[in-house]
């Protein structure tokens, strides 16, 4: 019976957290002068109405999953990677460069090679803050964010200079984008007429790999121990610094891979804004998914839905798609508050007493109150 109360408690607090997140978003929508119910209805249902909408959700869930898997590894290992945005762009550059440079290579070689190049590009970009943290103790939150700025500028420079499509310069408008990747570098689409591509299989397989890595291998054990209690890990002979570096490099590799998958699977050329904030959204997705692959997949789909839905509100009722960022912020706040409340033994005790007396004893005048988020 006690465990029933516990479940009710957790469910109520989670619901309260969701309500609070919605309420915050509602307030912002109210300020914008939009219809709150209509906006939510569009965001949450409109994308699910046809196959294009559904596949578009998945198309966004693919990079979100990949980025979040890497972020889960880094967060679990005690190093916070906020630099996925830059690492994605490095992955795009490296993947696209390899694909463009080797147009005559057969597809079965070029696709893996481009993806590998992207992975390495992201990993190298995260190696720098990882090394700085492990060896010199430089705060990784600062350094990864700073590396994002460098990546944005570097990416913009390449697309306007060395990597720009020559046709744009001669006959086009000078749009900063690369040439189209050779067909042999494309990840195939699964359903004709939609953009859903086989990158989804890569994401699913890697989710399993990350689970095995973290919970079934000695490397994962080491990294999780280093993240959960660095001092104890050191006493147990674990080289915590090496774990931090490795976790950061893996996180960058996943983000870089996400970038390469995005460029070879969706856009097929390097364009501006290709990272679409996936690097930051990935942090939210990872936290919302409990830093566990089994949670990250549904969480990525959910945020994919929000992203597609927000696009639709922009088109249908002119609510800016950036509203989705407000939602993300509200979700982070409410997750953190909900976790604190769920782990508060005193509040739980109070709830359990009210709950038990409300159902099994004399009813009290006050209704059960779960505290809110």
């Amino acid at each position, binding site marked *: 019976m006690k465990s029933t109360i516990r479940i009710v408690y957790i469910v109520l607090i989670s619901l309260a957290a969701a309500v609070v997140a919605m309420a915050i978003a509602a307030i912002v929508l109210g300020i914008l002068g939009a219809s709150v119910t209509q906006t939510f209805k569009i965001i949450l249902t409109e994308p699910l109405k046809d196959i294009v909408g559904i596949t578009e959700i998945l198309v966004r869930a693919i990079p979100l999953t990949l980025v979040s898997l890497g972020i889960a590894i880094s967060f679990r290992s005690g190093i916070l990677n906020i630099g996925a945005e830059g690492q994605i762009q490095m992955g795009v550059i490296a993947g696209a460069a390899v694909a463009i440079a080797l147009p005559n290579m057969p597809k079965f070689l070029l696709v893996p090679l481009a993806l590998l190049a992207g992975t390495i590009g992201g990993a190298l970009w995260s190696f720098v803050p990882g090394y700085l943290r492990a060896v010199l103790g430089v705060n990784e939150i600062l350094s990864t964010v700073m590396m994002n700025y460098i990546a944005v500028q570097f990416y913009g420079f390449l697309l306007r200079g060395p990597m720009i499509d020559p046709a744009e310069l001669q006959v086009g408008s000078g749009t900063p984008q690369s040439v189209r990747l050779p067909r042999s570098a494309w990840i195939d689409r699964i359903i004709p007429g939609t953009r859903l591509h086989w990158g989804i299989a890569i994401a699913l397989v890697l989710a399993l790999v990350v689970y095995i890595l973290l919970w079934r291998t000695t490397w994962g*054990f080491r990294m999780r121990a280093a993240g*959960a*209690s660095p*001092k104890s890990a*050191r*006493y147990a*002979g674990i080289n915590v610094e090496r774990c931090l570096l490795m976790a950061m490099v893996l996180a960058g590799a996943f983000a870089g891979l996400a970038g390469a998958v995005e460029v070879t699977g969706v856009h097929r050329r390097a364009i501006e804004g290709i990272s679409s904030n996936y690097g930051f959204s990935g942090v939210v997705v990872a936290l919302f998914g409990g830093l566990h692959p089994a949670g990250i997949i549904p969480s990525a789909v959910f945020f994919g839905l929000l992203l597609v839905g927000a696009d639709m509100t922009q088109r249908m009722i002119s609510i800016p798609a950036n509203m989705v960022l407000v939602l993300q912020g509200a979700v982070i706040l409410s997750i953190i508050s909900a976790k604190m409340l769920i782990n508060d033994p*005193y509040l739980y*005790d109070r709830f359990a007493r009210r709950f038990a007396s409300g159902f099994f004893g004399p009813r009290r005048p006050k209704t059960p109150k779960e505290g809110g988020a």
Partner: protein
Amino acid sequence: MTNTKDKIYSLEAKGITKRFPGVLACDSIDLSIGENEILAIVGENGAGKTTLMNILMGLYQPDEGEIRINGRTVRFRTPNDAFAAGIGMVHQNFMLVPNMTVAENIALGSRDFHKFLRLDLAGAKKRIIEISERFGLPVQPDTYVWQLSVGEQQRVELIKTLCFGARFLILDEPTSALTPQETEELIVLLKRMAQEMSIIFISHKLAEVTALSDKVVILRHGRVVFSGTTSEQTPSGLAALMTGHEVVLPKNESSEECGDVCFELENVYAKSDRGYMALDGVSFSIRQGEILGLAGVSGNGQKELAEAIAGLRKIESGRINLFGKDLTNMRPRERIDQGLGYIPEDRNSEGIVPSFSVKENFILKDFASPDFANGPFLKLKNGEQKAVELKEKFDIRCPSVTTPAGALSGGNIQKVILARELARNPKVLIAVYPTRGLDMGAEEYIHKKLLEMRSQGTAILLISEELEEIMNLSDRIAVIYKGKILRILTSREASMRSIGLLMAGITEPMAMEAGQ
């Protein structure tokens, strides 16, 4: 606030019962404290002391039972209710901001000193001086908390509670972080304070209980097993009541010759975190099957010594040898592989990974060995099997081996660490404050295990500030003072008195003799 300034001349708890999932934490507990009395509540870890105090403080509501103050039934729904009724609690872990002054810390916690957009520091200082004079608690309101010793910080906690208007004190294991000298001072102080108010004092150090309290209540498994006048009890009698069996702390009585020297420090120098020389030429050696006790007031280089041996602190010069092998430049992992075992000082943050399961903590040092891993893949079944075995063998009380280790009681966490280290059959074991904060039952168990290891030939370095522990277990006793080993005595030469003087840094033979 209904902060009536009436004196609390009686507090009673009647039939307090509190259930948690699967546990009856308090089982109709009765207690009563009269005017100016000191009541000690004793019990092993997990006996229900803390839950009972949380109920008195309004953090938990009892399932049954009631609390009466001055004969009137009260209900505490929140800690503020308890506080308004005049009950003040000093927690085991101090709740002070280190980079603020004493006055700022006190002004911070009380509405009385919150003026519009600023703190009324002058008012706070006035109240502090008033209280400190009235109770004889000397304290400088303008010193920063980080500059104070642990004993002084506790005094600040007491003053804080009194400044907020407490007329009844609850102290949760107040001596667990104090040195023996500070403990004596605290006992004198509390006796003086008892002339003005009643005090509840939670402890499992029975010598303090008999020295300080008028009445004692003993809890076991959530029940009152004894309630009566302290003066009729001896510490060992209380220990028997507390644990349910006769407690005899084992002694190192065997006089078997120890083996060869196997562990040696030669002239080790190491710096502290603040950059001064914390180890100032430390040399000693331990033989197989020998316990070397390292006595000393904490903060004299023990932490740095332990870290230097584990390989977590760089040494400036000197050598560390294990069976003739030079460990000095080895990584922590290599030292472990050479047979170095370790029971760290802070069991929660250095000994276990709290969020890991008991099972995972057992293999924290061996997860990559062929017993528990096949290449990079963990053999989860072997880990599980080993864990069940160790849980049984070391009598670790936990719902299952998948419970997070951080959820266990202090004594059980220490058993997890002990089980892990002993199962690895170390050649040398460094035990740092191995029984700090543990109850007598757990202490007895750990002492027994250390002596068992000794008779199996392990060399043990026992770092402790409990003289009794050192005297009971050691073959030889070294005394550390300001980073230097002042003297190494055999257990026959050593007396409480001589070690105590050395711990205070007094080495002159004159003083030693005068003391004896």
